[in-house]
């Protein structure tokens, strides 16, 4: 059965997640045709390098589509190409339009999927994370059509160059009751959702005035900054940086935790990250049990030194 994958674009370019999503869709299609859908992406053909056969590029002068409008475009496209499996990502936007797409297609919605399904008695069982990464469920759909939400950084990207067909057309947008009045984004800064590396700090840093070194470390690494819940509750850092079970989920390649104790709610939200480094002056801090690499030491001594060493490393490996 054909698979349709929706690739989000930003500033007229496919987002970084496109490679992973296209690779997953193509593996899922298992030889059947892979369609991609994207809105206003000038570099749409690039997904051909990850197994997409045909990409539909919808064009609109509208800057910020509502989730309902995006959902409608995805639902219409999947009907048009006869896809019974629709693959979406797990960005904030995907978590917004995902349910709307499923409802419009009368499909099952299986989010937070961490890999290819296994087949049991002819039906596909998707492994997805539940209980905020404290467990996994193997879930099957009881409907013909299924919307699969791929968890970030769960599958990786596998180059699979194919000659790609491009279909460009104008997007027909539905009326929307929710209208955007503009978005504010920190420009030129890596976001927790997209960064390969996240540098996170906790109450061990004593106060907001000490975040300079956290930001500098993040700068050197091209990383996003994050924090523990009490740090955002006390207003040391903005809410958008709070990660964990009740904050943002983190699934990066490298997570560096500085002065964070490693409470169960914090760990649940970040343990989908591949490699965890912990810097804490208390050898008994629970975070060490969840870490790959640990430094027992004073953050105020270790972090500045680490910044210098990393600058040297970057200079040598540039």
């Amino acid at each position: 059965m054909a698979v349709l994958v929706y690739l989000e674009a930003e500033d007229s370019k496919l987002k970084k997640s496109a490679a992973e999503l296209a690779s997953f869709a193509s593996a899922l299609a298992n030889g059947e045709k892979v369609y991609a859908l994207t809105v206003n992406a000038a570099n749409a053909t690039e997904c051909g390098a990850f197994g997409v056969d045909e990409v539909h590029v919808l064009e609109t002068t509208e800057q910020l589509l509502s989730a309902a409008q995006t959902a409608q475009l995805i639902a219409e496209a999947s009907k048009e190409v006869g896809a019974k499996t629709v693959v979406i990502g797990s960005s904030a936007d995907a978590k917004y339009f995902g349910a709307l797409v499923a409802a419009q297609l009368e499909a099952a919605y299986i989010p937070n999927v961490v890999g290819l399904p296994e087949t049991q008695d002819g039906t596909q069982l998707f492994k997805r994370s539940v209980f905020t990464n404290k467990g996994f469920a193997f879930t099957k759909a009881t409907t013909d059509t299924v919307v699969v939400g791929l968890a970030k950084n769960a599958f990786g990207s596998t180059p699979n160059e194919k000659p790609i067909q491009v279909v460009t057309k104008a997007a027909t947008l539905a009326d929307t009751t929710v209208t955007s009045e503009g978005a504010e984004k920190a420009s030129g800064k890596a976001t927790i959702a997209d960064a390969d590396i996240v540098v996170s700090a906790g109450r061990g840093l004593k106060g907001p005035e000490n975040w300079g070194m956290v930001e500098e470390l993040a700068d050197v690494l091209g990383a996003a900054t994050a924090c523990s819940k009490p740090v955002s509750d006390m207003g040391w850092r903005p809410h958008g940086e709070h990660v964990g079970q009740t904050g943002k989920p983190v699934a990066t390649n490298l997570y560096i935790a500085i002065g964070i104790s490693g409470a169960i709610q914090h760990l649940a939200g970040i343990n989908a990250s591949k490699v965890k480094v912990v810097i804490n002056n208390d050898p008994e801090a629970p975070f060490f049990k969840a870490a790959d690499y640990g430094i027992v030491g004073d953050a105020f001594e270790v972090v500045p030194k680490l910044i210098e060493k990393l600058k040297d490393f970057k200079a040598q490996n540039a």
Partner: protein
Amino acid sequence: MKILVCISAVPDTTSKINFTANDTEFDTQGVQFVINPNDEFGLTRAIWFQEKQGAEVHIATVGTATVEPIMRKALAIGADKGFRIDAVPSDGFFVATQLSSLIQREQYDVVICGRESIDYNGAMVGGLIAQQCKYAFINTCVKLEIEGTVAKAVREIDGGNERLSSKLPLVIGAQKGLVEESDLKIPNMRGIMMARQKTIEVLPAENIEARTTDVRFERPAAKGEVTLIEPNDLDTLIDLLHKEAKVL
């Protein structure tokens, strides 16, 4: 203004998660259930509308009688009335469809769900309700003001915020930020006493087929030992991150 807050009862955030019956069921033994944290932010905002703008606030939960203590807590926080739809919440579609029937009957102006429940993390009930009831929908909502039939809201996006406006009726997905942590309502003695007098109406569930089935569960693989590095040997750390972990 009539507001419905959809309350999901979930394991307390400190719970260890285990599975039983050959890994086909979540093991509730020793697990303490609480109001889903995202729903708690939504409920507190609803009570603000009740206090400041005279809103009537109802709560609804799809669940068996075991969820009633959680519902009583929500009533003690200040909700006026509860509905319990009597069924095991088998999946997000099942839950949403049950709630949609109630919403269409009661004609709520605003329906507040959580961004996601922290048990099955579906992040879908709010969106499904919106689509089924033809209500507007705003997810990851961190600010909500209502004047007349118009809502002004802010939602969190990756790396920032988006300002939105919408006509009612509206469904939102609530989360931290909608109210400050320090403003979260905690039931006081008077609230607890009053909650005893409030109604929880039990409604029979409609016969709806779930769209997904969890066939079995698995716990995450055990974590290997941490590699400790001396604070004065950061070259080794960088070397390991570069060559062994391949993340630099």
